[in-house]
């Protein structure tokens, strides 16, 4: 095996063991031919820009080291785990890589899983909220055993189709913890006085708080927290520029046995979202995907030569670029009634001139479609796209009249059944020019059928809260997460299963909390979607799964719980011309895909690391 030259000095100084000792006995050899990669060069700094300090978490997505992970084609493969044995879809045996080490050099073993299972998840103090959802099947947790230092076994009564996808999730679902590090903050393991000192020093109230704080791998805000990611945070937040240094113990190698990643350092500069396109245009980044939209394309393209980068367009993996989400749990009873009316939703959808929006906002580079799977998915049907989405204001008006919205005010606007003016307020998370533009066009369209649409930007987080409380009537956002879903992928997001879903937060919460919180769906189609999800969960037959998917998509196309507007709007990506191994075409998606994660950024390299980035 070969290690990066940048670490040679430390190895020589004896601060680091030689590369062979740093790698697991059986490292993950990345399949360069399958991915179409070239052998790269070591070194250099990759610069990127992010709008918020909390975006350090993106490096955890970017690094995408999971027990198992998706390939760009959406197939789950082992990664940190050497292999995973699945029996009956309910017994999972994870095999670790012997010799695998945390970024601080400590061994990574089943003890780390045990620590999580016993000292965190099931600890009376730390685990008060109960087990995370993917570990629950019908409300039951697994039986966990640790046969040896490199083997862990999870066993459920019934199949758990969510377990592996969760482990492969873009957001890390860590069922292990760096036990050696966290132990010092755990009352059961630590010296009480020493622990008290640490708690006081951090200004925390008690040790649970301290442990909770320091144990947030996804937040990626604790420089001391050991990790298995390719790059390790080296800058203490808060800062405006975060440096991530290569993990000397990273477990992947290229076909030549060179330890990955190629790139030594990732430097993430925090800049305001409004300024990022300008900075990108000025060549202040090597790989950029955030805070850029199609509207920046022309400008970015224009500066391509000067700033020595390429502007790429990756396909989007989302079911819909923008969709309207009526809130079925709106607090206002009249509005709730109205929004529950399928014809009302259909009327709204028919009233939208999608082609106009496509031309006016997206340069025609989009597809008018409802929120459903994309043509790239085996489940795609044109009808899912087209049903109720043809521009037909006359029919929309007819539908509205039919459900009794015939009263109008002086200006010709329709009134609510109780006589109030019908002001449909759509809330936007954060200021977003694209969304406001689209809404403005929709407002014009709605005007024509006698509905006044108003929109207002609210903070993303408070929108979430407003949705949950039913204060929001309608929100706007992007559509299905996994637009390229295959039958084996979970269809749960089609049904009210998550409290984070904007159209039915209370129903989602009800499902999430197994009926404890929230409210049961009162619309039959929603309940039907839940039932179908559960059927999908039970079956191991792929044909059956596909059938269930189709059925659910059909229900959504007909009932319009979300009103999709346009789909297939490409993601603009700017990449330095020195950056190699980044595919020209790709799918830019959060789940599955982890944005660049499944494309293995550790294989990216800088052609001339010394000159690049200067």
């Amino acid at each position, binding site marked *: 095996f070969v290690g990066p030259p940048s670490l040679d000095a430390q190895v020589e100084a004896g601060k680091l063991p030689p590369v062979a000792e740093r790698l697991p006995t059986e490292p993950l050899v990345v399949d360069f031919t399958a991915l179409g990669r070239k052998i790269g060069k070591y070194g250099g700094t990759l*610069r990127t820009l992010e709008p*918020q*300090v*909390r975006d350090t978490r993106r490096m955890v997505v970017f690094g995408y080291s999971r027990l198992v992970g998706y390939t760009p084609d959406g197939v789950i493969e082992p990664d940190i785990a050497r292999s995973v044995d699945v029996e009956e879809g309910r017994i999972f045996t994870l095999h670790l890589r012997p010799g695998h080490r945390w970024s601080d050099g400590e061994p990574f073993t089943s003890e780390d899983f045990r620590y999580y299972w016993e000292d965190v998840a099931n600890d009376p103090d730390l685990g*008060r*909220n*109960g087990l*995370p*959802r993917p570990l629950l099947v019908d409300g039951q947790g697994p039986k966990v055993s640790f046969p040896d230092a490199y083997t862990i076994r999870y066993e459920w009564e019934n199949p758990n189709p969510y377990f592996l996808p969760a482990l492969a999730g873009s*957001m890390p679902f860590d069922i292990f913890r760096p036990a050696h590090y966290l132990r010092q903050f755990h009352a059961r393991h630590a010296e009480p006085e020493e622990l008290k000192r640490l708690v006081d020093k*951090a*200004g925390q*109230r008690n040790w*649970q*708080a301290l442990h*909770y*704080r320091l144990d947030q791998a*996804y937040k990626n*805000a604790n420089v001391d927290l050991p990790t298995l990611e390719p790059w390790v945070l080296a*800058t203490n*937040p*808060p*800062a*405006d*520029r975060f*440096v991530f240094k290569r993990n000397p113990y990273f477990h992947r190698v290229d076909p030549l046995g060179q330890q990955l990643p190629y790139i030594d350092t990732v*430097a993430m*500069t*925090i*800049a*305001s979202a*409004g*300024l990022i396109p*300008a*900075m990108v245009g*000025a060549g*202040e980044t090597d790989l950029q995907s955030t805070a850029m939209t199609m509207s920046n394309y022309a400008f970015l393209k224009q500066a391509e030569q000067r700033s020595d980068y390429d502007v790429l367009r990756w396909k989007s993996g989302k079911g819909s670029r923008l969709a309207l989400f009526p809130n079925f749990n709106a607090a206002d009873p009249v509005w709730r009634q109205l929004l529950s009316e399928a014809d009302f939703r259909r009327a709204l959808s028919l009233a939208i001139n999608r082609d106009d929006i496509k031309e006016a906002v997206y340069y025609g580079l989009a597809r008018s479609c409802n929120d459903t799977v994309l043509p790239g998915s085996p489940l795609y049907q044109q009808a899912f796209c087209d049903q109720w989405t043809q521009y037909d204001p006359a029919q929309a008006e007819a539908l509205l009249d039919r459900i009794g919205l015939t009263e109008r005010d002086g200006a010709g606007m329709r009134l609510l059944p109780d006589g109030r003016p019908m002001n449909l307020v759509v809330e936007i998370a954060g200021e977003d020019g694209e969304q406001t533009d689209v809404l403005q066009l929709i407002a014009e369209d709605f005007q024509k059928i006698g509905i006044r649409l108003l929109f207002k930007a609210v*903070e*993303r*987080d*408070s*929108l*979430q*809260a407003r949705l949950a409380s039913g204060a929001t009537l309608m929100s706007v956002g992007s559509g299905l997460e996994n637009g390229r879903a295959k039958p084996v992928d979970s269809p749960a997001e089609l049904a009210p299963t*998550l*409290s*984070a879903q904007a159209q039915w937060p209370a129903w989602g*919460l009800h499902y*999430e*909390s197994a009926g*404890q*919180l929230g409210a049961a769906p009162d619309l039959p189609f929603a309940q039907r979607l839940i039932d179908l999800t559960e059927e999908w969960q039970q079956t191991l037959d792929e044909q059956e799964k596909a059938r269930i998917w189709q059925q659910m998509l059909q229900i959504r196309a007909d009932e319009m719980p979300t009103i999709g507007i346009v789909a297939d709007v490409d993601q603009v990506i700017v990449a330095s011309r020195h950056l190699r191994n980044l595919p020209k075409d790709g799918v830019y998606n959060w789940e599955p895909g982890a944005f660049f994660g499944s494309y293995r950024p550790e294989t990216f390299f800088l052609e001339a690391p010394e000159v690049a980035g*200067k």
Partner: protein
Amino acid sequence: MLRFIGYRTLVMLTTLLVISLLVFVIIQLPPGDYLTTYMAELQAEGETNTAEKIAFLKELYGLDRPLPVQYLSWIAGFPFGNFGYSFEYGLPVADVIGDRLFLTLLLNFATVLFVYLVAFPVGMFVAVRQHTLWDRGLTFAGYLGLATPNFLLALILLYLANALFGVSIGGLMDPAYADEPWTSAKIISVMAHLVVPVFVIGLSGTAAMIQRLRANLVDELRRPHVVAARARGLPERKIIRKYALRPALNPFISDIGDLLPQIVSGSVLISVIMSLPTTGPMLLSALRSQDMYLAGSFLMFLAFLTVAGMLVSDIVLALVDPRIRLTGQRR
């Protein structure tokens, strides 16, 4: 002297106390608290928010205590340099603000310096050359400064600075220097990056100050004691400098109190827009996420600057102007 300062300090402390209460209340005004924000974030990450979890987090953040207790324990820490705890960063506020404060102060002092360095000579120049083309031109330019929308100007200047001089866009230094030790190259980079923000933030203040200095000086030049000084055969430069400018300075000194806080709060939004590593962006995000102690402490810092500025300007005014020092009268 001491009595006066003592009295004023007392008044200042009371004012600050009132402001702290108001700030605390205002931060609480938007519905929800940091927990709402945080829960939403957790929810987005796929966690279920059970009642136990909410209770756990509430306890974690000390949000289970009644508001008055939260308030009192917050301000009780101030005399000891303990400004509470930032939820967002999981650190004591003092640690979070840390070196940002330095750059904030650097930016703001540079702006104040800019304002004074430009406003003074220009103001004097146009006052002496009243009603000339120079006067008209510079006055016009000053008004132009007042009328230009800051944000757009910032963007244009940033772009031009980059396109023409290769100054990297945004920030207060080239990103490469961010965590380097201070070297001359880094200092130069900081200077180059200061130009645009200082100009944008200071522009309207400068314009206003030129106008005022001009008006004051013109007034002062007409006063009998200036005529009398001429009759004594003193050279014109000395008359302007010693006999006219000095009394005309009063408004400037009383401005210190207003200028600094104005610039500081004016720089918040500009800082956000221009991505300056100052306290501005942090303040805004803290306010938005209701990270209340962090936001509150920032705001108290701003308020302190204002109040202290007013105190300092009063004292300086008295030190500089014997009329105030000796009779308590301003004119």
